[in-house]
């Protein structure tokens, strides 16, 4: 990561990033460019450096902020019409921690509206294009953040991961993407999607950059009662011992693209050649994770999105004569189709008569899934799996087929249900040049070891 010092000014780093962002404007990566403030902040850092004053660990490092993090710089829209015009008076804790270390937000990135999606095509502002193939999706929901890092516009970007929204776009664009342990990073000031699975995380170009970001952003926050007491910084240093790596054998491997299977097999061989032990795992409940996820998450979405009513902030429909009409019209006009699908599914699985068969059943399935992870991590240190069954698909290919889109999440959602961390790592490219990603999964609180161990998966050229 390039950090401002006496030879490279923060202003240079920020101006370069802004210039690249404009150069790639066709990709629809950004919903807002923070030009004026970013340059002002960079100059202040340069002044401090010149005066010999102390600067932070991320001094002058330009970064991109997924547009579901609140801060007073630019509108926070979550790429949703219903939040149009919303400039937050408060700043997300994660943003504050990064900025306190001198990181400079150069722009807000595009996402599927309210992070509902796996391609960034559900954005009110239109889709983001893949960094390696303009006709393909960026992945999602944090598509803009992934492409901003992949095209080297910024050194890192923030993301949120509710079911794969960091790991999948990271894998579609060949960068590192971490979904930390549930509760590791404060979610204060982040637009809520599903409170029992939402996680804040990052896109970065190297494991070492990821480690720096995690050491800065993690930790307990009195403003988010679901943050764990600090553990990241005090994690035991990585051991040089040989590790046991689990491979999930009974997963639905037939639906995984053969080139992704091959990439996994190659990494398994690499790990073996480096002396690590490979262990076959049986996790039969995982094939139900997607169904459980698409019950639990919509239920929480229906609840979290009930707050958007046009009264206090954001978009308000104009032609309403009564308060009920105002709610109804604002929500009818303000939500995208995918938002409506998820809210309706949520209200379906929670409604009397269906609650036991769907929501309660899914909550029980979640217990089984957690149990399988616990059992697995009594036998292995980490698990290595694909992130998604396919590399980046074509724009428009799945956007009108929600089930096909949901199936892309089948290998990523179980981590969120279990609250365990997962790191998407680049694993080469397929024949047509599209990046392939794998994910390294660890037990809760293993984030630091996961990042360190991912270096074992790097090829030595």
């Amino acid at each position: 990561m390039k950090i401002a010092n006496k030879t490279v000014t923060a202003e240079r780093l920020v101006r370069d990033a802004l210039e690249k962002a404009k150069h790639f404007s066709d990709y629809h990566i950004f919903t807002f460019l923070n030009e004026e403030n970013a340059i002002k902040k960079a100059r202040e850092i340069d002044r401090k450096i010149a005066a010999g004053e102390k600067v932070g660990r991320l001094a002058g490092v330009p970064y991109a902020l997924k547009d579901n993090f609140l801060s007073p710089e630019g509108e926070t829209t979550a790429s949703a019409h219903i939040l149009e015009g919303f400039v937050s008076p408060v700043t997300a804790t994660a943003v504050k921690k990064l900025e306190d270390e001198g990181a400079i937000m150069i722009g807000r990135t595009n996402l599927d509206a309210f992070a509902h999606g796996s391609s960034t095509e559900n954005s009110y502002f239109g889709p983001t294009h893949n960094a390696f193939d303009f006709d393909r999706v960026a992945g999602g929901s944090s598509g803009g953040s992934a492409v901003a890092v992949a095209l080297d516009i910024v050194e890192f970007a923030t993301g949120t991961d509710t079911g794969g929204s960091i790991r999948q776009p990271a894998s579609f664009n060949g960068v590192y993407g971490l979904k930390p342990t549930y509760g590791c990073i404060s979610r204060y000031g982040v637009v809520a999607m599903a409170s029992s699975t939402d996680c804040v995380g990052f896109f970065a170009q190297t494991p070492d950059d990821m480690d720096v970001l995690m050491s800065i952003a993690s930790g307990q926050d009195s403003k988010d009662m679901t943050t764990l007491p600090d553990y990241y910084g005090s994690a035991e240093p990585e051991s040089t011992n040989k590790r046991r790596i689990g491979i999930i054998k009974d997963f639905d491997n037939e639906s995984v693209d053969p080139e992704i299977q091959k990439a996994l097999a190659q990494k398994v061989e690499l790990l073996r050649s480096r002396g690590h032990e490979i262990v076959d795992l049986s996790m039969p409940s995982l094939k139900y994770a997607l169904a459980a996820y698409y019950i639990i998450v919509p239920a929480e979405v229906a609840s979290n999105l009930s707050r958007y009513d046009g009264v206090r902030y954001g978009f308000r429909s104009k032609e309403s004569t009564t308060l009920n009409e105002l709610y109804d019209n604002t929500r009818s006009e303000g939500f995208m189709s995918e938002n409506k699908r998820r809210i309706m599914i949520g209200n379906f699985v929670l409604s009397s008569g269906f609650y036991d068969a769907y929501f309660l059943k899914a909550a029980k399935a979640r217990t089984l899934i957690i149990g399988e992870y616990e059992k697995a991590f009594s036998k292995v240190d980490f698990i290595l799996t694909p992130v998604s069954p396919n590399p980046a698909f074509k724009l428009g290919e799945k956007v009108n087929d929600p089930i096909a889109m949901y199936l892309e999440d089948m290998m990523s959602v179980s981590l969120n249900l279990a609250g365990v961390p997962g790191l998407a790592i680049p694993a080469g490219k397929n024949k047509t040049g599209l990046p392939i990603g794998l994910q390294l999964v660890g037990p809760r609180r293993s984030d630091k070891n996961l990042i360190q161990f991912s270096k074992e998966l790097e090829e030595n050229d």
Partner: protein
Amino acid sequence: MDIKREDIIHLAELSDFSLSEAEITFLGGDLRGIINYISQLDQLNTDDISPTYQVFEMKNVWRDDEIKEQEANREQLLKLTKDEKDYQIKVPKVL
């Protein structure tokens, strides 16, 4: 299971929005497909399994009820609304 047109309209009502005719058709079709997909959980045996609703490991603790300074003040919050008068948010008539 059979999801009828009235069920779709009812779900939209529960969700506080209305659907156009076109949305009733295509979202209705999507919902049928999704509900059919998630119904595969029937096949999973969950006898004697207790449900999990959250994965945060900590127990609730009580703290003193202190008044803390908030990041946003009243003026800043009221500025976010579309219509405001005398420190009140204005909305159309309720009844």
